[in-house]
Each structure stands twice: as structure tokens, then as C-alpha cells.
């Protein structure tokens, strides 16, 4: 078993929180893990990505080869497309549809959505809206993780446990909000992955 995952977003959107949760769940099930992070200059509103690799065998490279990633998980729609060269032919694209517009030549939303729809295996949802409806605008990333959960090759209960461990310190309410967000994303994906 292996899952090579590209996490994508814009600096400041906190993509590493998704990596941390998947990582915690993976380690708990005894899987191997490598995660190349991006630090430094690109954090100031620029594009950021992280390579997360999990496998039941030792992992050699910190970087995922082009054309071999199993999943792109993106918290921003345009950023989800930036990493298509890395995605394998049967791979899945999981993305938030809520744009983060901090440049003047941001593409038109219709064009962007058409490109995403055009890509066969995809789950696209407005995670910000879903999170807001649940009363926790800040858990949009958990919604996205939930939407990716059917493709991770890790038991959903392991992800839930990881959320409990990571957010446990912040109190039961925060844990529940995040678990609800995770579930809502998952439900959406299960209903739409056909």
C-alpha cells in the first residue's frame, strides 16, 4: 500500500494542519511516512505545497515523482490545478472551491470550475461554506480532509482518533466541531465520488 499526496494552498492557509492529521493517523497504524514541507519565502501569500508520502514499506525519496501522485488535496481551487503534472492518470483531485484571490490576474471562476470538472476523478466543494454552516468557519481544512478521507487508505476511525488527539487539549467542543467538519466532508465525497 502507498499513498502519495500533494497538499496545496496559499501561504497562511494552514495546509500543514491537514498533513499533521494524516501523519498522526498513519503513524498510529504503523505506516511509514515522509513529508516534505515548504518553509521560507513562499509563505507570504505565495503558492505553497507539501509532499506527503505514506506507505507500508520504507519510502526512499522525499519528493513524489511526476505523474505518480495518488491524490491532490487542495484548500484553494486554482492551486489544485498547479500540481496536475504530479498526479497519476487514475489519481484524485480533492479541492475546496472557495477562491483565495490576492492577484490581479486570477482566472474567472467558470473557467476554473470547468477545468476542475474536466478532470475526471474529482471532488470539489465549498469547504468554507460547509464549515460555516456547521458553525465553525475555521474548520474548512477539516472538511477538505474529510472529503479526501475515502481515498487515503487509512480507516476513517483512525483519522477521527487523530483529530481527538491533536485537538484534545483545546477542549471537547473544538474536538466535536472538527469531527463534525471531517464527517461533513466525508459525506459529501461519498455522495459524489460515484
Amino acid at each position, binding site marked *: 500500500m502507498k499513498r502519495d499526496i500533494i497538499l496545496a494552498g*496559499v*501561504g497562511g492557509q494552514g495546509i500543514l494542519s491537514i498533513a499533521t492529521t494524516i*501523519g498522526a493517523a498513519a*503513524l498510529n497504524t504503523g505506516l*511509514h*511516512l*515522509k*513529508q*516534505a*514541507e*515548504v*518553509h*521560507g*519565502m*513562499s*509563505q*507570504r*501569500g*505565495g*503558492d505553497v505545497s507539501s*509532499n506527503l508520502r505514506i506507505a507500508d514499506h*520504507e*519510502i*526512499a*525519496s*522525499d*519528493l*513524489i*515523482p*511526476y*505523474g*505518480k*501522485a495518488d491524490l491532490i488535496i487542495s484548500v484553494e481551487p*486554482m*492551486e489544485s*490545478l*498547479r500540481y*496536475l*503534472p*504530479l*498526479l*497519476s*492518470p487514475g*489519481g484524485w483531485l480533492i479541492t475546496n472551491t472557495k477562491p483565495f484571490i*490576492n*492577484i490581479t*490576474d*486570477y*482566472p*474567472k471562476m467558470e*473557467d*476554473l470550475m470547468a*477545468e476542475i470538472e474536466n*478532470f475526471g476523478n474529482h471532488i470539489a466543494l465549498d469547504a468554507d461554506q460547509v464549515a460555516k454552516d456547521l458553525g465553525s468557519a475555521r474548520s474548512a481544512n477539516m472538511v477538505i480532509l474529510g472529503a479526501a478521507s475515502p481515498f487515503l487508505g487509512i480507516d476513517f476511525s483512525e483519522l477521527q482518533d487523530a483529530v481527538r488527539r491533536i485537538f484534545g487539549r483545546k477542549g471537547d467542543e473544538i474536538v466535536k466541531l472538527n469531527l463534525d467538519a471531517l464527517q461533513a466532508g466525508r459525506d459529501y465525497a461519498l455522495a459524489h465520488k460515484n
Partner: protein
Amino acid sequence: MDQKLMLLGDEAIAQAAIDAGMSGIYAYPGTPSTEITEYVMQSKEARSGQIRAGWSTNEKTAMESALGMSYTGKRAMVCMKHVGLNVAADPFINSAITGANGGLIIVSADDPSMHSSQNEQDSRVLGKFALMPVLEPTNQQNAYDMVHYGFEMSEKLGVPVLMRITTRLAHSRAGVIRKESRKQNEINLPKDSGQFILLPAIARRQYKELLKKQEIFESWSLTSGFNVFTDGDNKSLGVITTGIAHNYLFENYPDRHIPYPVLKVAQYPVPKALVEKIYNSCDAILVLEEGYPILEESLRGFLNLGKTIHGRLDGTVPREGELNPNIVAVALGMEDTHGKDIPSIVASRPPSLCKGCPHIYSYNALTEALSKWSKGRVFSDIGCYTLGALDPFDAINTCVDMGASITMAKGAADAGLLPAVAVIGDSTFAHSGITGLIDCVKEKSQVTIMILDNETTAMTGGQDSSAFGRIEDICTGVGVSKDHIFVLNPSPKYHQENLAILKQELDYQGVSVIIPRRECIQTALKHIKENKKAESVPSEN
């Protein structure tokens, strides 16, 4: 102890140094090396005062402080990004000649492909230049183990050891198993009281010894187990890898069975015996180096008359930039893999100054104040404010190395480009700007120097800045007239006021220093968060 920690390469180095009984770590921040020192600073050993950990004013002062600690017999580490090693080059090269007393490791983090740097120089060249042993870990565990080994080696052989890492290792996380902790050394001054006095007579003797030691270094490289030769059935090619290139080779063989003989190099000087073994048994050699083609060049020799050597020099591997699994696949004659192309509607999203960043308002005022002169007279420096080169500011004309703003402005003013403006951050000013300012004062150069004081080293994540609270004193101390030192508030509200002062000082025929001062938004937010936490959590003692 056998519990696995998920650590960045940087953190693995830091944890190893703590476990190996290091007494002090010195550094100037720089991507991708910063997290080593930050990790040690946050450790309980550092917070309780058992380990000295903190930022130095620049890499040279850091290197010398670490050498001073080594002199006392204690273990020390100094960390920097690759270009920092240029700044520290003088003490670095000479430390190989004095040798070490307590274990001394210099970590230099290279940035092939220049993810956040101005060049992609390879620190192994400087290691060789200094005639120092070099360790180049292939993964996070290897980095952890090599720090223990490096300190041992440094003490047993009486030589500082250079550890060279690259961005991918520094900023990638993997499982690391720790070793037993070791106690710190006691103070124990060098047995030879002349060891650290590099008077020519002593230096000549020490240098001879260093040359003699090269053979010993090489024998350590042979026996340490870090350089590994693995035989293969297919002798049509032998593959030599250095550093993390080894991982990319393995990535291309999912069953981990490589048909060719492979020499994995992770410690220098490279043992001749191992190179001979692979060279003699194979028809041709492929060298995969993460960095400059150093090994490749020496294998080829000047005339390239031996066996065929493939690598960066014959185009089998691109001449510049970091490696990846695909580049290595192609070099091995395998198929390249590629997903769909990036759709053309995807726009680039370069980094930009944060909303409300004080630098924005400094540039707004400066650009307007300069509007009556021709363009091309703003000499800038390295930091967040370098983004002033991009749209919509287009406000600066140079960025070369830390400190070069003031001195390049001086050179241009000397040439007659008047007024010449320097724009430098507060941390960069402390790092390398002060000496240039003294040059300007000495010759009354007509330069207007803006020291953008956001009260932190923002670019690398908000480390403290050595000149904090002292900038005006430093300027008056080196002789800038008090009448030509101005502190501004870089906010829209004060635009007109700031503009007037800038215009006036651009006309002044001497050195003037303008200090726009307002805290970086990011560190200000961090401070607010910390204060809130401190209020809501009852203090522990």
C-alpha cells in the same frame, strides 16, 4: 529510546546535538537552516540554561563564538545557510588550521534550485577548500546519527567537521530513532597552549599537520559505514550518488533491487579504495550529485581520457538545479512520467508583502520623494523588503548580498550618481550594514540610508534582531550627525510628513539615516496571541 520521532532533517540535527552533549549552538537565521537553532532554543535543555542557544549578529560572529566554545573543550555547533558560510569563511577556513578542542560541527544548508536564495553554491567546495572532513546525510536518521559521529570525530581527530545538508532534507519530515544521551564536556583547555595562535610559525606547523591528517580523514570515511559500495550484476554502468541523490536512485527501483554496482557517498574525503572498486569493475560511471558536479569533475580529470563518466557535465543530468526522481529516471534511461499539464488559466502567485506591512509605506514615500530624479538609484538588500522589486512597487534596483545596499550606494555616489539611496532592514543592518556605514561617514558620502526597522528578522520567520532598540545609538556612535537621523512612522497617516523628510534628506550632501519604524505585522500578531495566552493560562511559577 526506541520511540520514533517525526522530525524535519533540521530538527533531527538539533535533537542529535542535544543528545550528544552539545553545550552551545550559534547561528544566524537563513532558510533552510533556521529550524535547527529554533528547535534547540525551544528544548528544555536550552530553556533551563544547560545549553546556550541563540542568534548571533551574523554568521562570522556565530562561527567564532562556536570556535571559542570548542577551545574550552565543550561541544559546539554553528548553523547557517550556504551563503552564510561565505560570511563566515575567514574563521571557517582558519578553524581547520587551529583545529578543534571540544567537538565542533559547522552545519551549512545549501539550497539547490534557489527556492529561497540568491545562488546555489555547494558547501562541499568550501569544505574541501578548508581541508575539512565533510558529512552529507542521505536522510533524517542518517543526519541524526552523523551528528553523534561528527562530534566524536571532531574530538578524536582535533578538527572541526562540516555537515552539508540541502533544502529537501532540511525541510522534510521522517521517523528518527534517538540514541542514548551523553553528558556535556567539562572545561578542558587545549593541551598545546599554542594550538589556537596562528602566528606564521605555528600556522605553518598546524597546516602541515592538517595536510597529514587528510589520509586519516579518508580512512575514517572508509570505515565509518556511511560510504557504502553495493555490488550489482550489470557492470555496464556503475552509479555513484552523493547525499540525498541516493534516495532518488532507490525511488526508481520499487523492489529496491538495483542491477548496477552502486557507491553511496555521504562522507568526504571520498575513499579512493571505494572509487577504484566501482570504476574498475564497470564500463561507464553515472554520477548523481545533489549540487555541483564535484566528484564527477575529479573522476573525469582535466582531459577526460578515462572511462565514460555521465552526469551533469555531459548533459545526462541538467547542469543546474536540484535533482528529483524523474531526472534520475531519465539519466538511467528509464521512461519519464508526467501527469496532465498545468492548465493555461493557472496564474502565478508570487510571494508578496503582507497587508499593512510597514515596508509598503516606506516604499510609497521613497518612490514619490525620488520622482524628480531619474530611475535606477535605489540600492536594496535582502529581506522581506526585497519584494519591493516586484509589482506594484518596482521600487528598488539591486539586491546582491547582505549589507551590499549601503556599500553599493556608496560606490555609486562616488561615481557621481547623486543622490544614491540605500534600503536595508534592521537585522541586515546589524549583520553587515554597520561597517559600510562607517565607510560612508569616513568619506562624507552623499547617501541616504533607509533602515527599515520592523523590529525583527521577518523574512526568516521573526527571529530577534541584534540591533533592536540600538539603531540610532549605533548610527550616532559611528559618527552620523544627530541632525541627519530621522525616525519615521511608516503608516498612511504620516505619508506627507515622511515624504517631506525624505525629500529634504535626499538633497543633503552627506550621510543621512532615515529609520521608518513599525513592527512587522506577523510578529505583532504573534505577540498579541502570546499575551492572550499568558493572560488566560495561570503562570506555572
